[in-house]
C-alpha cells in the first residue's frame, strides 16, 4: 500500500466526545462490531474503521464518509462491544458533526447542536408569531367560539411565515446536500477502494430504489438488538407522510375555494377551517396525528428501555424527539381543547404548536431531521458505487 500521511485532528476528537461519543477512546479494534452489524457491506465493513478514524481525529475520513449514514444505529455493535466503546453512539455523534459541517449558514448548524442556543432558537418563532398577532390586531385570548385561523392567526400570515420557513429550509438542504454530494464524488477519484469507483445504472432508478427501501424500512428492519425501533420509526415516518398529505389537502380546500370557487361537494369541505370531523381530510389528519403520537411515545420508551444496551442518546437526539413530541401533543390538544371550548388554554397551546412546527421546519437542515436528506443521499451514493449489503 502506498504511504499515507495521517493528520490527527485533536479538536475533532473532542467534538466527537462532546457530541455524545464520549466512549470513543475505549475501542481496542477487535472488530466484533463489524461482524455483528447486519447493515454493513462485507468489503471494508463499518464501524470498526470509523472507530479508528474517530480515535485519530481523521475528520475527512468521517464527515464525508457515506458509511456513517449507512449505519442505522441498530446498536447491535454497542450491545456486543467488549469494551463499552458504543460504536453506534460514536457514529451518531459523527453524523451530528457531519450535519453541522454541511450546515449553511454554518452558525445555525452550531446553534442547533448547542444547548446554550436553545432559548434563542425558540425566541425566533415566538417573536415572529407574537408580532403577527399584534399586526393583525388580534387578542391573545380571543372571545367567543374558538376559531384559530379567523380570530388568532389568519391564513395568509400562516402561509407567509411557513412558506418562508420552508423555502429557508429547502435552501439549507440544497446547499448542504450539494456540498455533501460533491465531497462524496470527489472521494471517488481519490479513493483507493475499488468499490468506490464502480458506477452502474441510471441515477433515477437508484433514487427510486432508495425511496422504496425507506418506505418499507427494509434496511432498518435488519437490526437485532433494537429491532422495535424500525417499527416505531415506521409509525413516525408514516405519521409525517399522512400529515404532509393532510396539509396539501387543506391548501387545496382553501385555495380551491378562494381562487377556483370550488364549492363544498358531498363531504369534501372546500373552504376555510375549521373543518368538520367527518371530512376525509380531517380523518386522515387525525389518524396521522395518532400514528405519530403512538410512534414518538414508543420511540421515547424504547430509548429508555434500550439505554443500557444502546446508550441513552445525546442532546441532539433528545432535542429532535422533544420537538416532534411537542408538535403532536400540542396539535392534538389544540383540536381537543377547541372542541371542548377551553378558550384560555386552547390559544396558548395552539401558539406552542405553531412555534414547534416552525422550529422543526426552519431548523430541519441543522437538526437531526436532516438525517432524511443525508441518509437518502448516502444510500443513493452506496447504490451508485455498488456498495450494497448482500
Amino acid at each position, binding site marked *: 500500500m502506498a504511504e499515507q500521511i495521517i493528520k490527527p485532528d485533536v479538536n475533532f476528537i473532542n467534538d466527537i466526545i462532546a457530541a455524545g461519543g464520549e466512549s470513543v477512546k475505549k475501542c481496542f*479494534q*477487535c*472488530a*466484533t*462490531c463489524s*461482524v455483528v452489524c447486519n447493515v454493513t457491506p462485507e468489503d471494508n465493513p463499518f464501524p*470498526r474503521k470509523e472507530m479508528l478514524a474517530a480515535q485519530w481525529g481523521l475528520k475527512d475520513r468521517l464527515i464525508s464518509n457515506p458509511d456513517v449514514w449507512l449505519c442505522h444505529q441498530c446498536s447491535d455493535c454497542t450491545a456486543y462491544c467488549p469494551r463499552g466503546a458504543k460504536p453506534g453512539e460514536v457514529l451518531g455523534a459523527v453524523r451530528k458533526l457531519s450535519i453541522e459541517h454541511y450546515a449553511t449558514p454554518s452558525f445555525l448548524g452550531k446553534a442547533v447542536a448547542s444547548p446554550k442556543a436553545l432559548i434563542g432558537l425558540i425566541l425566533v418563532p415566538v417573536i415572529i408569531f407574537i408580532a403577527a398577532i399584534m399586526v393583525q390586531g388580534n387578542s391573545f385570548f380571543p372571545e367567543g367560539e374558538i376559531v384559530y385561523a379567523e380570530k388568532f392567526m389568519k391564513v395568509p400570515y400562516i402561509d407567509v411565515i411557513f412558506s418562508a420557513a420552508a423555502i429557508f429550509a429547502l435552501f439549507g438542504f440544497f446547499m448542504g446536500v450539494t456540498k455533501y454530494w460533491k465531497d462524496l464524488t470527489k472521494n471517488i477519484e481519490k479513493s483507493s477502494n475499488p468499490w468506490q469507483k464502480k458506477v452502474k445504472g441510471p441515477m433515477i432508478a437508484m433514487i427510486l430504489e432508495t425511496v422504496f427501501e425507506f418506505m418499507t424500512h427494509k434496511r432498518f428492519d435488519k437490526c437485532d438488538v433494537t429491532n422495535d425501533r424500525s417499527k416505531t420509526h415506521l409509525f413516525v415516518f408514516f405519521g409525517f407522510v399522512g400529515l404532509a398529505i393532510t396539509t396539501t389537502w387543506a391548501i387545496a380546500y382553501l385555495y380551491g375555494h378562494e381562487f377556483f370557487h370550488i364549492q363544498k361537494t358531498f363531504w369534501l369541505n372546500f373552504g376555510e377551517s375549521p373543518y368538520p370531523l367527518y371530512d376525509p381530510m380531517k380523518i386522515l389528519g387525525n389518524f396521522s396525528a395518532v400514528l405519530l403520537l403512538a410512534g414518538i411515545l414508543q420511540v421515547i420508551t424504547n430509548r429508555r428501555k434500550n439505554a443500557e444496551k444502546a446508550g441513552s442518546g445525546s442532546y441532539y437526539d433528545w432535542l429532535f424527539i422533544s420537538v416532534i413530541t411537542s408538535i403532536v401533543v400540542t396539535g392534538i390538544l389544540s383540536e381537543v381543547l377547541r372542541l371542548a371550548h377551553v378558550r384560555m388554554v386552547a390559544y396558548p397551546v395552539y401558539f406552542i404548536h405553531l412555534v414547534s412546527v416552525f422550529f422543526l421546519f426552519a431548523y430541519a437542515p441543522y437538526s437531526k431531521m436532516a438525517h432524511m436528506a443525508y441518509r437518502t443521499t448516502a444510500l443513493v451514493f452506496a447504490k451508485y458505487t455498488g456498495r450494497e449489503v448482500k
Partner: protein
Amino acid sequence: MAEHKKVLVIGGGFSGLTAAVETAEAGFEVIIVEKTPYFGGRVTQLNKYFPKLCPPNCGLEMNFKRVKNSGDITFYTLAEVEKISGQEGNYDVTIKLSPRFVNDKCVGCNACAEACPVEMSNDFNFGLNKTKAAYITHNQAFPFLYAIDGKNCKGSSCGKCAEACKYDAIELDMKPQTINVNVGSIVMATGWDIYDISKLDNLGGGKLANVISNMQMERLASPNGPTGGKILRPSDNKPAKNIAFVQCAGSRDENHLPYCSYICCMASMKQATYLRDQYKDSKASIFYIDLRTPGRYEQFYWKVKEDPNVSFTKGKVAGITEDPETRDLIVEVEDIMAGKKIKVKFDMVVLAAGMVPSTKTAKIPGDVSYTPDGFVAAASLKKGMYAVGTLKSPVDVARSVQDATGVAIKSIQSARR
C-alpha cells in the same frame, strides 16, 4: 524451636500441593482440604502443560510422592471448609467431609463401575462423555481410590457395586462428617473454573455440538480423555482436522470477563501443535485481537508461526453458525488486515475461554474480601490468610508454583506466632 501450629491449605491443585509440601518439608504440620475426589486440580485435566509441555504427571507425581513421604501432611478429599473463625496464629476451622462410599481397601479394579447401572455426565471431561456413578476420574488419580457419586447413586437399595466388589471396599452407608481443626495460618488455593461458554450466545457455545472450550480440547487430546487422545469432534466422532481457535472468548470483554485470562493465547498455540502433531494434513486457524505471549513464551509463538498450516488472523470472531447437514461450523470475522468481513468453514471450533476464579461462585467462609470479578483482594487480606495463584489473578502453572512457594514462608511465619 518455638511452639508452632498447623497450617491449613484449602485446595489440592498444583498451588495447594506446592504450598503444602514446601511448608511440611520445613517441619510444619499441614492439613490439605480438597473438594474433589482427587489431587492435582486443573493440571490433571491438561494434556500437556507449560513451560516444558510435559504431561501433567511429570510435575504432579513428584508432588504426590512428597505428600506421601512427608509424615506431616494430613489430606482430605471430598472435603470443604465450612467455617473459619479466629485470627493469625489461632484459627478454628470447620471442615465438612462428604462420603466417598469407598474405603481404603479399594484396589482400583473397576468392578464397581462395571456393575453400576447409573450413568452421569463426566465432569472431569467437561461433559464430553458419560461415566458411571461409581467411578474414578483418570488412571493416574491420587489417591487411587474409586468414588461413588452421592447425588446420582441410588444407594443401598441398588447395592450392585457392593456385590461386585471383592475387597469389601464399598460402604454405601458412609455418612458425612464434620471435623474441627485449629491452625495458625491458612493458604487459600481453590483455583479457577473455565468460563461458561454457553454465555457466549453469538459463538454458539453450549448450543452447537462442535463448538467446544479449550479445556474440552485438552481432554480430547489427552491420552486418558474421552477419545483416548484422538482429536475427534463431538457431533460424529470424525477426526477434526480443520480447527478454528477463537481467542478472547469471554475474556477482555466487559459483558463477560473484563480481564485478560493470561494463558489462553498460549493454550491455543499449544493446542494447535496437538492438532498438527496428530494429523499431517490438519490446519489450525487462530483468530485473535492481540496475541499475548507473556515473557519468554514469545519464543513458542515464533516456533508455532513457522508452521505454514497454522494461520493467525487479526479479528475477533463474533458469529458462529452451523451447517445443519454437515454440522460444520461457519465462523464470521472481520479480517482486519485485509479489511474484509469473511465467513470460513471449520470441522470444529475451540473457544479460548477464560479463567474464572473459583471464589466468583464459592466464597471462602472467612474474613476475605473480593474484587468485583470475584478474585481475592490480596492487598486487603489480613496476616494469617494467604491466597495463591489464580485466586488473585489469571496466571500459568509456573507462576502459581512460585507464588505458592513464597506463600509457604508466609504461612510458616504466621503459624509460629
